[in-house]
Every structure is written in structure tokens, then in C-alpha cells.
């Protein structure tokens, strides 16, 4: 993985001291809250429902054991013993004191981490496929590009005061696991006919109150033009994005108002007008950064492990774990292990300090010191030898992290919702907990098959509900929580925005509504191999509407 050089270290250290001074001046009253707010936001510090909240970047979702242990230490020393992994591959601490945050940032800097640009109207943490570098369907590792973008965008003077926040995601595999079309810029690594690496570029994606999928502005952008082209996109956006209305300020609105052809022409004109040499990305620089992400030397192993096969034969839960949470590695004899942070009944994405330490130990002992954070709010051990899997599983189980439900109905994305968030209009975590409890992790969940439920507690859509196969949006109506359901959303390479199924459901009934939807699907699917999404695309909303509303005579179920 990438390691800070002297420049990076000095840059982050200087930033910590700058923030320390800003916090001291705020506490002494030299800075008003209005003056201080943009500074704290640019350092990832929010004021939430119960307390401050610190959002720490995990660039492109890659961590080493030392960093994970530091997060555990911060959770214990400065917070309440746990952290929350988010859909943006960040971690949030929910209870830090303002006066402690400079010390927390100083601790993070010791392990090459920071909270810079995890909030504010700037380029946010660049996200990537959580299986980067190990996936069997990968064209090229997206992380070197994400790292180059991180370095280029950190405190970029021209792009630190954008009309609104700006999110970039990079996917390097054939299968999109980074939801690139839900980002302001989505980059899909591709090879052209000559075998050269480059990007298909999508612009104007975003969820929130006005969801749009990114539109393709370039089929093939050569690798060396990456920064120049992204600069051109941002320059057009910075100049023309609306600043009069924060709800219409994202580039997706600009795309919608100007049309794809017009915006693309403006981007291309801006790109052509600039001196190409200024931001040329030389192959040597890409190679230098890529070297940091070179795969470790992996000892050759047999593709089948007798130890694993024996355990599968006598331990049904291990067999379930193997089926759901373990996926092929590009190197035979190794596997990629998803560590589910969705134990049945637990808040999605939360990990205790002890669990973080346990995962750090496992990464060190069994996964070449690497952990990934997925946008689906799980962790990943990317380099596990198949023979080691039973030992890894046992250790995960001993700290409550061996839930065999990755990709299943209980592997739910949920934003913090009204339990923590100042912007939320309804709770989302309890809905996720109740759905997970309803379906469990046994035969019933297995028979449902792959199904992505995503829950947001307000229209800002941090829980990605628009791209959930079943999306749930929590709203407040006349003082009561109410939940709107969308169906058919998808965040992969066949991305789609879900369609609203009809009037919303009360908190009491929303879980039953989900159950009705799932039972309707199971009743109409062509066989176990037809997934929920495939079935929905075949039959549309009508059978689900009928099951939810007509059979119940228009009542709220």
C-alpha cells in the first residue's frame, strides 16, 4: 500500500498543527462558530445530534494493521469504544470532544491517516473497489489512480471552495463494486484496442434528493490525461455550478440543466484549451505509485484445501460462511474474506475497539497486513491462504465477526439515521436490525438469495437507498416516522435508480412490507437462480404493488 514520503508526512503534520491552533482560537473565543465551522468541516469534524462527530478518511478503503489498531486506540481513548464504517469507506467516531480532536488527528498522522476533506465543499475521499488488487475480474488496480487523485486534490487551491461537495470513485474490475455511476465523477478502468490503459468517464451521478446516474462523457480517456481531464470537468463545474441554492449545486444538476452534449462539449473545450504538459501524468509517475500497490509475493498453494473441505463437511455454519463470505482470489489457493459488520441485530457498520484489534491481528497474521473497508460497510481480508481459512474463521467467530451473510438480505447498508445524525428525519438502524432479525442468517435468508437492501434516514441518501434492490427512505410525516420503499435500484455496472412502489409505511409495518415484497418475489421467480433484481426487471412494479396495496385494500398493510 501507499506510504507517506517526507512531503506527505510534513504536510499532514502541518495540517494538524494548523487545526490545533484553530481549535485553541475557537475555545478562547478568538474565532466565532461561524468563522470556525468551515475549518472544522474541512478536517472532518461535524456537530451531530449528541456530540461532535469525526469522520476519518480511509483512502480507497485500504488499511494496514497498524492503522486499524490506531483506530481501536482512538475509539477507546477518545470515544466510546467503537467506530462506524460508512458507505464512503470512511470511519466515523460519534463522541469525540472538540478539545481532543487535535490530539486525535496527531495520533492519526503517526499512522499516515487524516480527516482532511472528509467534509466541506471540496473533493472528498476518493473511493474504489474494495477487492482492488485481488479480484479475479480485474483489469487494473484502481488504487494507484485513486492515490494520485488524492494527492492532486488535497488542499487544491482552485477546488477547495466548490459549489458543493464532489465525490470521485474508481473501479478497476469488469464488475462495478464502487457504484461509480452514483458519483460526481465515476472512472472505470478499461483497455483500448491497442491494449493501453485508460478510463471510461462518467459525470453527474449522485443520489440525495434528486438522484441521477452518471452519464458517460468519454469512452476512453488515456491514462496520461487523467488529471488534465478531471481538472477540466472541475473547472467547468466550479465556474458554472449553482451557488445560489445548495440543493441544486451538485454537478448532476448542471448536467441535467445543460444536457449531456452541452456539458461534454464544454469539458472537452476546456480540456483542449489548456496546456497539456502542465498536468500530464507520465507513465513513470503512474509506475512509481503503482509500485506501492504491487501484490505481495504469495507462495504457490493448491487450489483446494483438504482442511477447508473437511471443516465444511462437519460444520454447517462454516460451510455457510464459506459460501457467502469467501470469494475467489486472483491467485489460486488464496481467498478474499468478507468480515461482515452486520451481525444479526447489530447496527450495520459498527465495530468495537476489540473487534478492530482482532481484525488488525488477523490482517497481520494471515492477510499480508492488509484490511479493506467496503462501501457496503463491511471489512475485507484480501490475502487469506485457503488453508488458513478455518483458523481465521474461528478467530472471527470468537469476536462476533463471523456472520455468514455477505451479500444476503441481512447484509444491509444503513446510514446512522436519527439515532445519531442531525440531518436525519427518521431512524434507519432499527429498521435494518429488525429486517435482519426477521430473515436471520439461516435457511430462509439463503433461499432468498442475493438481495441488497439499503436504508437512508433522510433524503440525503447516505444509505444509498436509490440503488438498493429494495431501497428504504425514512421520512417524517406529522411527527411520525414513515418509510418510502423503492424497488429495482442497482449500484453495479447495470446501475439503476429504484422506482417508488407507492405510499410509505409506518415504522411498525415497514418490515412486514419488506417481507411481503420478498415473498412476492419468491412466489414469482423462475427458479432459485433468478435473483430479486433479475425478477424485478422481468416483471416490474405491478406484482409488488398489488401485493402491498391492493390485497390489503389500500391500508397501510
Amino acid at each position, binding site marked *: 500500500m501507499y506510504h507517506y514520503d517526507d512531503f506527505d508526512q510534513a504536510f499532514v503534520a502541518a495540517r494538524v498543527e494548523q487545526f490545533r491552533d484553530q481549535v485553541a482560537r*475557537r*475555545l*478562547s*473565543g478568538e474565532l466565532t*462558530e461561524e468563522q470556525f465551522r468551515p475549518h472544522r468541516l474541512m478536517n472532518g469534524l461535524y*456537530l*451531530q*445530534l*449528541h*456530540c*461532535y462527530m469525526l469522520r476519518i478518511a480511509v483512502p480507497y478503503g485500504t488499511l494496514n494493521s497498524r492503522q486499524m489498531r490506531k483506530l481501536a486506540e482512538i475509539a477507546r481513548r477518545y470515544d*466510546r469504544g467503537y467506530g462506524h464504517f460508512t458507505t464512503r469507506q470512511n470511519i466515523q467516531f460519534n*463522541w*469525540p*470532544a*472538540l*478539545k481532543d480532536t487535535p490530539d486525535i488527528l496527531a495520533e492519526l498522522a503517526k499512522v499516515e491517516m487524516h480527516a482532511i476533506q472528509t467534509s466541506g465543499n471540496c473533493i472528498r475521499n476518493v473511493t474504489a473497489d474494495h477487492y482492488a488488487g485481488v479480484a479475479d475480474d480485474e483489469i487494473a488496480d484502481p488504487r494507484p489512480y485513486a492515490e494520485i487523485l488524492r494527492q492532486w486534490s488535497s488542499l487544491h487551491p482552485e477546488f477547495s471552495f466548490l459549489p458543493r461537495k464532489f465525490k470521485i470513485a474508481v473501479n478497476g474490475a469488469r464488475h462495478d463494486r464502487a457504484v461509480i455511476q452514483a458519483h460526481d465523477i465515476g472512472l472505470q478502468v478499461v483497455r483500448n484496442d491497442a491494449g493501453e490503459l485508460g478510463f471510461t468517464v462518467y459525470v453527474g451521478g449522485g443520489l440525495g434528493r434528486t438522484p441521477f446516474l452518471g452519464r458517460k462523457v468519454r469512452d476512453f480517456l488515456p491514462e496520461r490525461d487523467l488529471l488534465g481531464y478531471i481538472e477540466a470537468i472541475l473547472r467547468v463545474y466550479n465556474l458554472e455550478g449553482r451557488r445560489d441554492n445548495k440543493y441544486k449545486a451538485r454537478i448532476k444538476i448542471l448536467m441535467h440543466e445543460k444536457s449531456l452534449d452541452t456539458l461534454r462539449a464544454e469539458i472537452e473545450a476546456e480540456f483542449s484549451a489548456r496546456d497539456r504538459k502542465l498536468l500530464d501524468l507520465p507513465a513513470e509517475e503512474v509506475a512509481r505509485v503503482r509500485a506501492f500497490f504491487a501484490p505481495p509475493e504469495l507462495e504457490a498453494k493448491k487450489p483446494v484445501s483438504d482442511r477447508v473441505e473437511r471443516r465444511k463437511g462437519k460444520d454447517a455454519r462454516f460451510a455457510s460462511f464459506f459460501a457467502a463470505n469467501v470469494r475467489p482470489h486472483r491467485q489460486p489457493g488464496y481467498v478474499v474474506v468478507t468480515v461482515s459488520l452486520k451481525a444479526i441485530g447489530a*447496527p450495520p457498520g459498527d465495530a468495537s475497539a476489540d473487534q478492530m484489534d482482532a481484525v488488525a491481528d488477523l490482517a497481520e497474521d494471515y492477510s499480508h497486513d492488509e484490511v479493506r473497508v467496503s462501501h457496503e460497510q463491511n471489512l475485507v481480508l484480501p490475502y487469506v491462504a485457503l488453508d488458513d481459512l478455518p483458523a481465521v474463521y474461528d478467530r472471527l467467530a470468537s469476536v462476533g465477526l463471523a456472520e455468514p451473510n455477505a451479500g444476503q438480505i441481512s447484509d444491509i447498508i444503513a446510514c446512522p439515521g*436519527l*439515532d*445519531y445524525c442531525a440531518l*436525519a428525519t427518521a*431512524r434507519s*438502524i*432499527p429498521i435494518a*436490525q*429488525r429486517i435482519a432479525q426477521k430473515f436471520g442468517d439461516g435457511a430462509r435468508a439463503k433461499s432468498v438469495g442475493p438481495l441488497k437492501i439499503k436504508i437512508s434516514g433522510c433524503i440525503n441518501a447516505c444509505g444509498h437507498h436509490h440503488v438498493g434492490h429494495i431501497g428504504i427512505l425514512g421520512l*417524517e410525516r406529522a*411527527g411520525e*416516522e414513515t418509510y418510502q420503499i423503492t424497488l429495482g435500484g442497482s449500484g453495479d455496472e447495470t446501475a439503476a435508480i429504484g422506482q417508488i412502489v407507492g405510499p410509505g409505511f409506518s*415504522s*411498525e*409495518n415497514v*418490515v*412486514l412490507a419488506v417481507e*411481503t415484497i420478498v415473498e412476492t418475489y419468491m412466489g414469482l421467480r423462475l427458479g432459485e437462480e433468478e435473483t430479486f433484481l433479475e425478477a424485478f426487471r422481468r416483471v416490474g412494479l405491478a406484482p409488488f404493488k398489488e*401485493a402491498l396495496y391492493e*390485497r*390489503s385494500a389500500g*391500508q397501510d*398493510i
Partner: protein
Amino acid sequence: MPDVVTASRLADGVVVFLTAERDWSEDFNRAAVLADAAASVAALARAKEDEEQNLVVDAYVVAVEIRNGHVVPKALREAIRAAGPTIRRDLGKQAEGHAPLSGPTAVVEAEHVSL
């Protein structure tokens, strides 16, 4: 409608309530209950002075009502803010005995529903 005044303490972000002694308490049950609009306006003005003094931030008025004989915030958002996360009863004011005496409840699953 009666009100209380709340804010977040600047140095640590902890939710606090304005008391009758013109002090700030972490305990909702010590909040001064303001009987009318004039009292609320005056209390908020005092809170804003404390914002100027950099003691608290984001002071505002919260509507309360009497439920089961206890003063509680009317809106769910404020009830959760005054108690702590409903999914973690071990955290926040509810864990320290500082929550409203009748707090937000967990949702109970609907059992008998005609489909």
C-alpha cells in the same frame, strides 16, 4: 406550548439544557420549563449570550409536553437527542440517568396484520 432551551457545549459537544438557575445542565430533567412564548424568547436570549461567551453553540428552543406525568420533548428527534441513541441504551444521557423520564421507545413489531 411549553418549551425548554437546549444547546451543545462548545468544548466537548455534549447536549445541555438551560436551567432555572441560568446554568447549563447535561440532565434534561433539570431544564427550566418555559411556560409561555415570552419566557422562551427571554431564555433563548440568555442562551445566545452564552453562545457569545463561547460556552455553548447552536442554542434553540425545544417544544415539550407532559406525558405520563413527566415533561418530555414533543418531537422524536429531540427525545432521542435528550436521551441517546435508541439502539444503544448504554450510551448517551440515558446511560447516566439524565434522560427524560419517559423516553423514546423501541419500535415493536406489528404482529397481527391483515394482508
